[in-house]
């Protein structure tokens, strides 16, 4: 069960995909989901109440006076879709701050297709 990074099926019942992991301020979440909709993305997962350190310093969602909160969006999609997301996301992220990591992964077939 070795994962080969060649973009084709490499493990039984799995599909090679790209995984995006995006962290931005919650105030930009709506813009981000609209952007993803525009790219035709059909599935993503949102984690709220996220904190962290970055170029803008510490952001702590538990600090009731500062009202800063990050969200993490995890998203799996096929390669062509991924390219579209990269193209749209890069300029937007300049305004947003935050970060976007991309990696390879396998999607385990089974549930309804939402990518």
């Amino acid at each position, binding site marked *: 069960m070795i994962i080969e990074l060649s973009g084709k099926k490499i493990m039984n019942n799995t599909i090679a995909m790209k995984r995006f992991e995006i962290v931005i301020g919650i105030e930009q979440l709506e813009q981000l989901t609209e952007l993803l909709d525009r790219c035709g993305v059909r599935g993503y997962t949102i984690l709220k109440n996220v904190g962290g350190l970055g170029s803008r310093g510490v952001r702590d969602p*538990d600090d*009731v*006076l*500062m*009202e800063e909160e990050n969200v993490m969006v995890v998203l799996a999609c096929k390669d062509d879709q991924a390219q579209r997301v990269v193209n749209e996301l890069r300029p937007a992220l300049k305004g947003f701050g935050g970060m976007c990591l991309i990696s390879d992964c396998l999607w385990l077939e089974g549930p309804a297709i939402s990518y």
Partner: protein
Amino acid sequence: MATIQPVVLFFVFGVLAGVIKSDLKIPEALYKSLSLFLLIAIGFKGGVSMSKYEIMEVLPIASAMVVLAALIPLTAYPILRFIGKFTQADAGAISAHYGSVSAVTFAVGVAFLAAKDEYSEGYMVLIMALMEIPALVTGTILARAGASGEKTQWGKLMHEILTGTSLYLLIAGVIIGYYAGMTNNVAPLDKMFMDLFMGVLAFFLLEMGLLAASRLKAVMAKGVFIITFGILFPITAGLFGAYLGWIFGLSEGGTMLLAVLYASCSYIAAPAAMRIAVPDADPAVSIGASLGVTFPFNIFLGVPIYWEMAHWFHTIPV
């Protein structure tokens, strides 16, 4: 000298818990619930007592007191900029905080009057709600005038100011209280919004103490200037407020509350507005000064001092 009210001791125990690193924590949902309560209750109380006057009569005076509040940031700015050596953004943002008001300080003032059985005008609440507007707008202009960089998001700012939770709930409370007063239906709601007021304030002050303690380091880092400013400026603003209240013919209690409003500074509504209007200002400084210095000063010493001021003006023969 007036005695300290038991309720403000909750602030002391909040600060102390922070200092000795107790694991005492107020759940965020409780803090937010308590502030919703306080805003509605303050508004409601004011609205009920407003239902006893002709609103139209007080409108011009009230408007004047609101508009004159714009003088506070105009006075604070040059001090902060040229003596305090703050950047334009920070000086403007701090000015906006000091021009704006603290509903909790106001509540402590109201509790102080209640303990003395002193009358005050109900529409002071309306003034409190509206005072934010000129203060935040003036502060923003000061922070941004001539500054390069991105354009001020005036639309977004005005939306934030006018629909922000503080202003909105105060006004909602006033209107509902006014309606309840007019239709003689206060009775079933007062068990919540009036009877529990002091108990809720107690919890809130406990949390304020914890929050203030968490800001102490930031204040200390800014040293002597910010502490001096955080005490002397509200006294001056309070004196101006007391003078105006007397000029406008408010009762002694009302005069004192106007002094409290002019002297108090914001740590909730103003930071939210400044995040939008002056994103390059450092919120740690303004919240630190506001919550770490001026708020405790006001609730312990300021309130009795403003009461003495109000009293003193009212002894001047007219």
